[in-house]
Structures are given as structure tokens and as C-alpha cells.
């Protein structure tokens, strides 16, 4: 089985950056929308990673 390199990179980045991102997301309660910005960025990254790859095999 071969793992997607983009996925491995994402896992590595998550491990490295998560503490900092978490602090940024929840540092100021007024900016309640920050987790959604992070979520949107993750979704954009997944979309970008998959836009050229078609894993259909059926």
C-alpha cells in the first residue's frame, strides 16, 4: 500500500504546527470564528491535493 505523500506531509505539518495553531484559535474568545478559518484552510488544502488525482478504480 502506498500512502499519499500529501497526506504524510499534512500529518507532519499538523504535528508540528498544531500547538501554535490551537493557541491562535482559542487565544481570544472574541475571535470565535478562527477555528472556522483553520478548518477552511484544511479543506482547501485537501481540495488542492486531490484536484489532479483520481482514485477511481472501479
Amino acid at each position, binding site marked *: 500500500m502506498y500512502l499519499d505523500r500529501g497526506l504524510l506531509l499534512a500529518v507532519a505539518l499538523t504535528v508540528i504546527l498544531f500547538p501554535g495553531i490551537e493557541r491562535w484559535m482559542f487565544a481570544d*474568545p472574541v475571535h*470565535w470564528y478562527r477555528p*472556522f478559518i483553520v*478548518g477552511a484552510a484544511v*479543506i482547501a488544502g485537501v481540495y488542492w491535493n*486531490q484536484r489532479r488525482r*483520481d482514485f477511481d*478504480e*472501479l
Partner: protein
Amino acid sequence: MSFSPDQVLLAIVAYLSVLFLVGYFGDRGAIPRRVVEHPATYVLSLGVIGGGMASNGVFTLAALYGHHYLLYYLGIALMFLLAVLLLRPLLRLCRVHQLASLADLLAFRFRSPWVGAAVTLAMCATLLPLLALQIRTVADSIHHLAGGGLDLLPGGGPRDGLALLFCVIITVFTILFGTRNAANPNRNPGLVAAIAFESLVKLGALTLLMAVAVGEVFDGFDGLERWLLAHHASLGGDAPLPAGAARLLLLLFFAGAVCMPHVFHMAFAENSDSRHLRAASWGLPLYLLLLALPVLPVTWGAVAAGSTFPASFAGLGLGAALGAPWVSGVAFVAGLSAASAVIVVATLALANMCLNYLVLPNRLLRAAGDSGLYRQLKWLRRSLITALILGGYAFFAFLGNGQSLPELGFLAFSGTLQFLPAVIATPYWPRANRIGLLAGLALGLAIWFLALVLPVLSNNTAGIIASHSDDWALRCTLALLANCAAFIVGSLLTRRSREETVAAEICSMDSGSRPHRRTLPVNAAADFVPALARGLGEDTARTEVDRALRELRFDRGESRPYALRHLRSRIEANLSGMLGPALALEIVDRCLPYGKSYPGEAGDFTLLEQRLEKAAGRFTGLAADLDYLRRHYRQTLEALPVGLCSLGVDGEVLLWNQSLADLTGIPAGEAIGARWTALPGAWQAVFAEALEAEPNSLLKRELPGSGPAAPRWITLHCSAPTEDADRLLLVEDITDYQLLQDEVLHNERLASIGRLAAGVAHEIGNPITGIACLAQNLAASCDPAEVRETADDILTQTGRISRIVESLVNFSHLGSGAGDTRVEPCNLADCVDEAISLLSLDRDARPVSFVNDCPRDTLVLADCQRLLQVFINLLGNARDASADGAAVTVSAATGESGPVEVHVDDCGHGIAPELLPRVFEPFFTTKDPGKGTGLGLPLVYSILEDMGGSVRIESPGPTAGASGTRVTLALRAACYDPAFTGLAGESAGAAAG
């Protein structure tokens, strides 16, 4: 509130009617196909996962834990963001094998209907809290919206009556939705469209509520921020969720995204195109992100507006606090749409599971011959849907009002978490077996029931979620760990059955399934109907066979073994979608059992090749390299300038390259997968001859042309047969070569005639001179006796001329067309005499003495004219190599049953040993330049081969002295029929041929 219960119930019926119409039009094609099958529709249909929990329950989580409510969305989103790890292999399995539920998947993987039954029962038990959650969402919403209830049941509360009415309505709609297509209950485009519509309604309603909260309550986002600064505690930051509990919640929702039956159904059973999962891997997280966005503003808006409703009904409370009934109506629609979608899809999925694993295994065998199978299935499914919804209602009524919506959701999600180990093991742990699975599931669910459900049922907890303790998380973790431990230990300590091993290979990500070629008890697609009728009834069998043929684009006359195997698999997959994999396997194995396997586990290469072709461009790393190599070698074989065919030990055609397709006119698509015995007549006969010929021998055959097409010449070279290896057959079109060879032969003959011209002139000149003298004598003679004598002399001389001319004419006409060898009995000595006679005409040639020692009664099977050419070439060579006056002897020896061996011996200078291997090469000659063409011996070789004989050269010869050469011809013998004046046996047969 300004709504009465009747109005609300009417609104429910109206909304569900709209939902039903969307589904109805989706099924009927009134909604364009491109819309129904669009990836966005599929993604939105997956929004079914956000039921009452998403529309109402998360408001409680948000009120209690602030941002931690996002764990609900994050867990589900993670499963889809990482779709490549689990969802993709599961989708592959479900699509290929028509698996529509988790019970189907696990029963297929662990090859046991008991596993399917156990999973179904467990799933029903774990889903009861979820159904109760949906019912409570709607019932409580009606209660809050209408401010009252209906006392329908003696001893029940007003909400119970509302809930019962809602259950009756939703049961009717679920039956209408899900039981129209009995033949394939798992593909329901209308349902997909309706659930996608429901997701849009839910998202729109929540977004509208957010707009109301932000605009009406806070006067914009600035006002919201100011309110947040003033009400910091309302964010839930002062009561954080314990870290262990947060991780467990994430895992619960992560597992729910694949283990919940309604999500599984929409994600896998209703998937019309596997590429849609790619869109869902980012599309569903995006949808969940948008769905999660309004939760905090609406929660805070309800608090700020002074709502008195429970947190789960923040939307309703917001409307009530603002005095805006339409806002409450919007919130109600959000909850109603979410809850009804979950109930419809979950009960449909559960009903199919119950039908396949709890009902049919006991009923179907008795109803096997019944042609009304589809009708029975429909009514059974309707009954099960009713029973399941009523079961959910009973659980709801039993619980009372002691639990919050998130707690009910937690119970359901923690129950379905127990299926996660088995789901992960399906593609990733081939060693897992059914004993381990059942042990783990039993232990995990027992702990789940005792430690989590029982306290809730006995109302022994004052809100396990709201307690801010991680005690419940520890209990849930304990259940999962016990499940995993029992699963692993049970699997390691017990053995897998052979069926489980095969299924594990099929399901495993690391070891691809290798389909095998096996025999079937049927010879054509039409034979499937009577065979399957024994298990399904004739009508159902015919319907299923026709459906599979249509899907595979085969016709009823299809008889290729590969196609029949493919058809059997498709029928099993289709039945699996209708009856479940365990029952489908049992029926198909009983009605169409596989016969023997061939030695060496012969793979179904045709199917394997198709799978690899479809996976083109998807491989990475070493797999991509191997696929690149495979394609390269495949192209090499396809581009070979000679026809190549590979035959399995069972005679099935495994490879048929382009050259062979061009040569035979049979496309690869028709030949591959068929047996060679099914090839058209002429080719079947030629293949049979090649396969029975001596290993590694070269067979040369003429194929008659069809219609105006000219006949063709081919050679066939077949590899040696072995017990378990495929046989390779090389087929080469040598028509051009044959035509060229005949042309060369003709030219060579003409050249011989040219060389003989001087001798001919001399031979004819002498008798003509004699005739002239005799004619002069005749003119002067008056004696009748002398005249008669002179006339006789003239006739003798003209007879001599006629023989010379006849020999020349025969020789020149010999083999004037390509491929006209006619093997017939031929007197050997006469043929040698003729050759000697012709060669004697050459006055310029070296004077040698030709001796014909061949027995006068020896017959050989040959083309006389071509055999004459052979002797002319051989004797001519012998003469050229001999000294003046030397003898060239032709002799023959006949064995008892073997061929006739003809020896041409000379006493010449012989041939150097290093040159012997090359003497049959075209244009190779040992003669001086200009004296030989180098085509004589190659022609001899070719002619002998055409006649089924052979030629060999020894130098020095065994009897011709130290320097001579012996050429030995092996020719098939013919014999006189002692009972008839003609020829018998082999000769007559050969002549006819």
C-alpha cells in the same frame, strides 16, 4: 406560541410530502439526471449524518463546552478528509460486491451469516437511542412550538402522543420512499435527491437563524463581539471538557461517520460513481463547516434574547424570545428535516439488514421456487420498517425525559464505536477471523450496555455528558479496549476458515485478489436461467440473468468461459445487494457450483488485466513501475509482427495479439476468454494440428481463401505442453514468402532450360538431320518395303524429338502457381530417369555417369513435377562437384514402416564441415561466381518440407569415398493396393487431400 398541535402536524405532513415529491421526481427522471448524479448531490446526501444531533443536540454541547462542540463535526470531517485510508477501500469492496450495509460488509469479510445476524442485532440495539433522539427532537420541538401535546395513549404524556403521531407519519413516508424498488433496494436516486434537498433545507434554516441572531439580537458582528466581551462565561471556557473525554468524543464521531447505518447506506450503497467520494472528501467537511458556523451565534443569540427553552432548542427559543413565530418555524423545519432524514435512511438500512440476516435465512428456502419473490421482499421490508420505527418510539417512551439529546446521541455513537475495530480490520488485518470478531463485539457491547446504557435506562445518572467528568469516557474507553483485546486474542488463538482466508485476501489492501479460472456446470448464458431457477424461481432467475447480461453488455448466446464466470460473479453481486452476501453466496454456490480448479491455480488473467487497465494512472511508487513494465511488455507483445496466442491449460485463450487478430480476422475481444475449440472452423483445425504436432516443430499450412480472397500460407510454432503452464502458439503469415519462393523456383527452372538450350538444339538437330537424309532417300526410293522402313525410321526420329520436347514442356510448366503442391504416388525410379534424361541434354556440362539404382517398383508420396526439380538440382550439383567420368549414383532404401530414403552419392570434392550448416541458406553457394545462384538447395529443402519430407547432407558420404557427398531425402512411402489396381491406404488418402 402561536401554533396549535394540529397546525404543526399538518406542517410535518406538508414538509414530508415535499420531500417525498423530490424523491419521486428524482426516481422518475423529472429532475435532470446530471443533477441527481452530480457529486454535489452525493455530498449533500451525506449530510444525513447531521440528524437531530446536528440540528439541536450540538446547541447543548456548545452551551456546555463552547468550541468543543466542534468535535462533533471534526470527528466526521476527519473520516472524510482521510477518505483514502478507510472509506476508499470500503467503497471499492461495497461497489464490486454490492455490499449495502455494515452487516453485509462484515458477513462478506468473515464469510458467515452468523456474523451478519449478530451485527444486525447489535446495530438495532445501538441505533435505538439514535431513533429515540430523532423522535424526541421532533416531539419536543412540537411541544415547545405548540405549547401543548396530544393525550393519545393511556398513561402517556402529551409528548408521547405527538411522538406517536410523528412516528406513524414518518413510517408511511419511509415505506413510500424505500420499498418501491424491490429488485435493488440499495440504489435509489430519488432518495439521494430527497436527502440532499433535506441537507440544503437544514443548512439554509440554520444559516437563516444565524442571520437573525446576529442581525436582530446583536445588531451585527460588532455587537456580537461586544456581547462576547461582556459575557465571557457564556462561551463555556470555564467548564472545559476533560482532555480524555475530548479525544473520546472525537473518536466516537469519527467512528460514527462510517459505522452508522444511515451514513454507510448513503456513502456506499447509494454511491453512483466512486469518483464522487473524492469530492466528498473535501465537500462534506465543507458542508459540516458551514453547518457548524451558526451554532455559536444562535446559542448566544438565544441567551442574549432571553430564551427560556432548553439549550437544544435554541432556535425555537430565539424565535419565542424575539416574538417572531417564523423564526421558530424555521428552527422547527431544521430539526424536522434533520430528524426525518435520519429516521428514513437509518430504518431503511436496518430493515434491509434485518431482512437479509434475520428473516430471509429462515424464509427463503421455503419460498425458493416462488416467482413472487420481489413482492414478498417488499412486504417484509415494509413490516420491518414499521417495527423498527415503533421500536425507536418504544425506547423513546421508555426513557421518558430524563436524558438530554446529546446523551442519547452519545449512547448511540458509543454503541456503534464497537464496530470500528472490525471495520478497520476488514481492509487492514487479514489475520482477523469471525471468532475474534464475535468475541470482541460481544464483550464490548456487554460493557457498553452495563456501564453506559443501563445507568441511563435506570435514570441513575444526572446527565452523563453534562457532569463535566470523564467517568463516562473511561467506561466507553474500557468497552472499546475490551472489544479490541478480545478481537485480537480471539483471532490469534483460533484459525481462519478457507473461505475467510479468501475473503481476507479480497478485502485486504496489501494483497490484491487474484481471481482464478474455474469450470462452471453451464456452457452458455442461457443455461443460467434453469440453473438459478432452482434457488430463485424461474421468473426471478430470468430477471436477474437478463439484468446481469445487460449490465455486462453480453448477449444470451455468450459462451466464453471468462464471460460466464464474469456473469456468475455479477449475478452473485446483484443478489448480494438484494438478499445480502451470505445468502447470495449460498444460492449461487448451490445453483451454479464451481467445478475443478486447474493445476497451478490458473489465474483469470483476462479479468485481472481489465482491473489493472481500469486502475491506470492510479499507482504510485513500485506499483507504478511494475504497471509501467507490464504495459511495456504488453505493447511489445501486441506489436509483434507475428501472431501470438497464449492458451491456458484449460484451452482458454489468454492472449491474442493484434497481428493474430489481423491475420485471422477474429478480434481479440472475441477470442480472449473463449476456448480455442470455439474458433471458426479453419482456424480450429489448424490450431488442433499445431497443438498435436511434435513440440517445437514448425507446421506449414495453406488456408483456403474465402470468396475472392486468395489462399494464404501460414506457419505455426507451438511450445511444448506441460502440466500447469500455458502453451504459446506463434502464427506467421508467409504468403508473400511463399509467392516469392514459387517465383524463384520458376525462375530457376527457366534458367535450367536456358542452360539446356544448347543440348536441346543438338539433341533435336541430330534427328532432324537424320529425318532430312531419310526424306531424301525416300524421294529416290521406289521399293515399298524400303519406303516403309524409311518411314519407320522417320517416326523413330520424330518420337525422339517429341520426348525431348515433352520433357522440356513438363519441366517448364512445373509449379507455375503458388501453393499448388499436389502430393500423389510417384514412381521414384521413373522420376530419377526423367531427371537424368534432362540433365543429359546439357552438352556443356561435365561428362559424368548417372546411375539410377532405385527399385523400379518404389512409390513415394510426392508432387512428381517438384520431385523432378529436386533431382535435377541434386544431380546437377553432384555433377558439378564430380570429376570427369565419375559416377553419380541414386539409390533408395525402404524401411518396413518408415519413409523411403533416397541417397544421391557423388565422388566429388565434398563440402567443408564449417560450410555444411549453411548450405540450405538462400544465396549461399560454394561454386565460383556466376556459376551458381545459391537457390538450388534452399528450394530442395522447401519442396521437401512442403511434401512432408526432409533432406540432410553428409560430407564425406559413408559409401562414396573420403571426399564425396551424400544427400539423403526422406519421403513418405506409398504402396500398391494388392486387391485393386489403384493405390490404397495412405497414398489414396493423401492424394485426396
